[in-house]
């Protein structure tokens, strides 16, 4: 029982990171139909910035907010300067552009903050100490039904739920959120009701990258360090989460992320002998494969059905 609860809580906090990355993927996919391969690396760049702000003596929570600002700018500029002009020529080429952005940002991080470059960066890059947003000392524990739960884990989960709630309000209770949903549903009609679709798309990319920043900072906090390979596997888990939840469903992204996190940790813990830490990633692929076979639109995604 104690093992189970520990693994559940661990799974939920890693799942929170996947949920944040998946949320970013979903926001961009809904707006433009593109899969942003650079989602994880955008988050990593702004996470490095948060590290840098910390080095300059800025408290971690303020650094996080500044980092989200940097993330927002990186996302917005990428959309305006790269994605938009390219997608006019060829929507498919956007896929290559985001891959290019992926490698460029990782190179840039390496050039500024040191460490080995791709492709071996995941293994040997410089590990820079990274603070946690929540109390992470060994004795920062809460006792829940006789099980010691780390406060950090609870804080992370709470933060992700708050962010999800705020996003829900943004999407469903504000004019801008309605405009975002309208653009996602039918871009041309959105123009015809007077929505500035360019602004909506720019802000969507910015928002996705800002949310990703939180994911990167939480992940670095869980790891106690930031390195060039931090977001590789996280991005894959995040994609699996978005696939599981449904690529057009923000709520699904959160639920999908948490499920993947829990499944991953349970699998690694209970069936250690033949899955173990190294094979955890295979779990994500199995989930993607299974979902695509059984329910291609994901748990909460909408299969496009329309009467004419």
């Amino acid at each position, binding site marked *: 029982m104690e093992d189970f609860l520990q693994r559940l809580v661990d799974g939920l906090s890693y799942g929170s990171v996947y949920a944040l990355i998946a949320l970013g993927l979903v926001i961009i996919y809904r707006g433009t139909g593109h899969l942003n391969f650079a989602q994880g690396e955008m988050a990593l760049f702004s996470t490095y910035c948060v590290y840098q702000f910390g080095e300059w003596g800025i408290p971690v929570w303020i650094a996080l907010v500044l980092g989200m600002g940097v993330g927002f700018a990186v996302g917005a500029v990428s959309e305006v300067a790269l994605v938009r002009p390219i997608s006019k020529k060829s929507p498919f080429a956007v896929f290559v552009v985001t891959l290019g952005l992926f490698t460029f940002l990782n190179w840039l991080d390496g050039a500024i903050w040191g460490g080995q470059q791709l492709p071996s960066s995941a293994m040997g890059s410089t590990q820079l100490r990274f603070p946690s947003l929540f109390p992470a000392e060994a004795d920062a524990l809460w006792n829940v039904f006789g099980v010691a739960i780390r406060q950090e884990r609870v804080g992370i989960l709470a933060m992700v739920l708050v962010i999800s709630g705020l996003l829900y309000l943004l999407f469903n209770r504000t004019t801008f959120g309605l405009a975002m949903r309208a653009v996602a549903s039918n871009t041309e009609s959105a123009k015809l009701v*007077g929505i500035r679709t360019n602004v909506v798309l720019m802000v969507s990319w910015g928002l996705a990258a800002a949310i990703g920043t939180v994911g990167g900072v939480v992940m670095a906090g869980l790891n106690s360090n930031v390195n060039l390979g931090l977001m590789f596997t996280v991005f894959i888990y995040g994609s699996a989460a978005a696939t599981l939840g449904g690529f057009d469903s923000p709520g699904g992204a959160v639920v999908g992320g948490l499920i993947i996190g829990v499944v991953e940790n349970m699998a690694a813990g209970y069936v250690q002998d033949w899955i173990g830490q190294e094979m955890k990633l295979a779990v994500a692929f199995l989930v993607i494969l299974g979902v695509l076979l059984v329910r291609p639109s994901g748990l909460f995604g909408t299969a496009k059905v329309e009467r004419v």
Partner: protein
Amino acid sequence: MNLLSVKGLSAGYGPVKVLDGIDLEVGEGEFVVMLGANGAGKTTTMRAVSGLIPRHGEVTFDGRDIHRDSPDSIVRAGVAQVPQGRGTFPELSVADNLMAGAHVRHGKAAEVRADIEKWFGVFPRLGERRDQRAGSLSGGEQQMLAIARALMSRPRLLLCDEPSLGLAPLITQELFAVLGRLNKDDGLSVLLVEQNANLAMHLASRVYLLETGRIVASGSAAEIGADDSIRKAYLGF
């Protein structure tokens, strides 16, 4: 003075030129019908006036040059389009579709809510389905929704692109009756594009005939209706 005045309008898609110098006018409170066969350029005309595609030539609305304006500022100026094939937001609820239609009127929530109720009064079937996803509505209901959504911006000119497409004649009649009332009672100016305009003809104050990107005839509904060859080609009787 004319509300909408178009002179020498050319537009197309990439290297394909669809419109080749069109002149047309819609006066304040007028109901103008543009007839044309498939591929004549009716939809392109609508899209060019609304600013969805690059265009050349003069387009003035209420004395203001709008031919370089973006779609959103054209909506703000008072022109709303009901696109061909309804173009609703299928994943959004009926009420949210109407709310999105009022995008340019943000800050006036009470007024907007009152307008939504007003259109639910005009189209009771939309009111019954207010929380249903627009994509689940029938074709006729979606067309009503598309019209109501366009009217949510409180336009002075309504551009209507083949609303009868794929609808039962009875439904089309119902829709045109509503458009006629809006024109007569509320003074809404309408530019309606149709392929088969039997039903629209008696609403029209003036008619234009479009053939392969050019206006080939124009006149009052009576004049156009009296022309045998036009009647056979476009009105089918």
